[in-house]
């Protein structure tokens, strides 16, 4: 389409956001509309930047590990686990086996609650509020389990550098098993409610399509990538914690439902199947839970002195409910890390909105935007401001700044 023609056929833009009831978290969308059809998509994240990395670089790793709990409101363990793994790599700390298993159990419980939360949100975006309430009622069971195991509902504070802070007692083990039985019994019902419903089928089948090639080109991760047919899962490809001992395979949309088509419906299927997979993983973990210590070094003062001496770089990767989450840490023999970078899973998934939304109707935007389960407060790492105004630096600006710096340094 030529530029002139595009001007005529795309006569108006529809801005949605930064804060809008159709979006769960703040992001600024600009749609180029042709009637009801979305033709062009642009978005600007960076509305929830909180400078958490800046805070981290002024604290020691034992303090940061609890700061990382607060990066995301839903993934309470993903970020702390990822950060702890990076630091453990640098300081060459070996995590006791029992701690690895407890980390895995909580990681999977979190996946259950996150996927059920997403299922509720997706139903709500479709205007199917009775299903939303049902999904969230069912989710409470996993929240109660997490609360019982860790102490709190949302900010668990369970991960410590070199292990976990709380053990699983025999009574708690029985509770977890009871909770798993509850979900096992519900799986079929949830699958029927979500997948056999004509409303959901109408609104989700064939909408928000992301082809496998696009998913690969845009470096999509997690359930979004798997729904497009990419066989990838950090737990399968690069096992960490106890996953090496367990049987974990990436879940793809099964052939019974038409194989991977990469639409919203496939993303529902993948997430629902992953709830079942998580139940299986927790059962395996409970079955082979080894005895022993849960912390590499229970004496905090000693741990702090070891971390103070640590030097080097480390990368912690974990499979968050939304996809791969990565923390890069560089320590240089000081109390605080030299550098700390968080790459949340949604960061990789945001770009997939563009091919998904093109050609869809305005009314499909909420469900398609929600279908990748975006977590923007996890993602936002940078906000450029100049004279108190938000600003965008283009490639040319950055080149200019770089040249100016060279010139400054040469003087």
């Amino acid at each position: 389409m030529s530029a002139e023609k595009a001007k005529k056929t795309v006569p108006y833009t529809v801005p949605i956001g930064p804060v809008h009831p159709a979006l769960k978290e703040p992001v600024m969308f600009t749609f180029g509309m042709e009637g009801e059809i979305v033709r062009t998509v642009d978005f600007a994240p960076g509305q929830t930047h909180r400078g958490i990395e800046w805070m981290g670089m002024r604290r020691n790793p034992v303090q940061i590990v609890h700061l990382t709990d607060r990066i995301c409101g839903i993934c309470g363990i993903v970020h702390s686990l990822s950060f702890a793994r990076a630091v453990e790599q640098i300081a060459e700390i070996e995590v006791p086996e029992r701690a690895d298993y407890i980390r895995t159990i909580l990681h999977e419980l979190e996946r259950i609650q996150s996927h059920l939360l997403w299922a509720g949100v997706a139903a709500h975006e479709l205007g199917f509020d009775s299903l939303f309430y049902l999904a969230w009622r069912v989710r409470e069971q996993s929240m109660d389990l997490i609360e019982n195991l860790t102490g709190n509902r949302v900010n668990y504070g369970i991960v410590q550098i070199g292990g976990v802070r709380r053990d699983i007692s025999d009574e708690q083990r029985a509770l977890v098993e009871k909770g798993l039985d509850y979900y096992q019994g519900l799986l079929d019902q949830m699958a029927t409610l979500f997948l056999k419903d004509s409303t959901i089928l109408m609104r989700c089948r064939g909408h928000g399509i992301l082809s496998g090639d696009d998913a690969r080109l845009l470096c999509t991760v997690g359930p979004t990538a798997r729904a497009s047919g990419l066989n990838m899962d950090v737990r399968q490809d690069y096992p960490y914690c106890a996953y090496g001992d367990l049987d974990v395979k990436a879940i793809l949309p099964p052939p019974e439902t038409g194989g991977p088509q990469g639409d919203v419906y496939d993303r529902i299927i993948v997430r629902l199947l992953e709830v079942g997979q998580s139940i299986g993983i927790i059962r395996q973990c409970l079955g082979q839970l080894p005895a022993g210590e849960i912390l590499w070094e229970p004496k905090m003062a000693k741990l702090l002195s070891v971390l103070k001496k640590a030097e080097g770089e480390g990368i912690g990767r974990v499979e968050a409910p939304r996809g791969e989450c990565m923390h890069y840490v560089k320590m240089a023999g000081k109390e605080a890390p030299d550098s700390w970078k968080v790459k949340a899973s949604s960061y990789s998934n945001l770009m997939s909105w563009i091919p998904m939304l093109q050609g869809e109707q305005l009314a499909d935007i909420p469900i398609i935007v929600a279908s990748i389960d975006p977590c923007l407060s996890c993602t936002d790492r940078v906000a450029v401001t100049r004279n108190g105004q938000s600003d965008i630096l283009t490639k040319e600006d950055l080149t200019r700044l770089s040249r100016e710096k060279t010139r400054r340094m040469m003087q």
Partner: protein
Amino acid sequence: MAGLPLLPELVRQLFSRPATNAFPSRHLPPSITGFLAKVARGEATIHPPIPTPPKFRGKIVYDREACIGCSLCLRVCPAHAIEFIPETKRVRIYVTQCIFCSQCNDVCPKNALHMSHEFLLATEDRYAESQIVE
């Protein structure tokens, strides 16, 4: 085959009790503040919240006598919520800043810090007496 599978469940729910705990009162009062004032005067009772789990981390409790003023807790507090008072060699904890990680409890050599089960902490004044533990 596609249909309306939620319908039977919805009909069933017409006859089941609500899943949520009615807190602070069983029925919505005309004014929440009026209701709470009534509770304070002893004319009404609060419908109790769900009990907290055994390892719950609520408002911090400080045992001033047991504390030896080693200030280890300051080094591990992620929120800088603990202040060391050099004159008395004791600490002061700002509850509004505390993030309830209980790391100071773990590090304390004398077990002077504990987490209670108290969680209804909201006030309008961040320096209120209830928000500072010393």
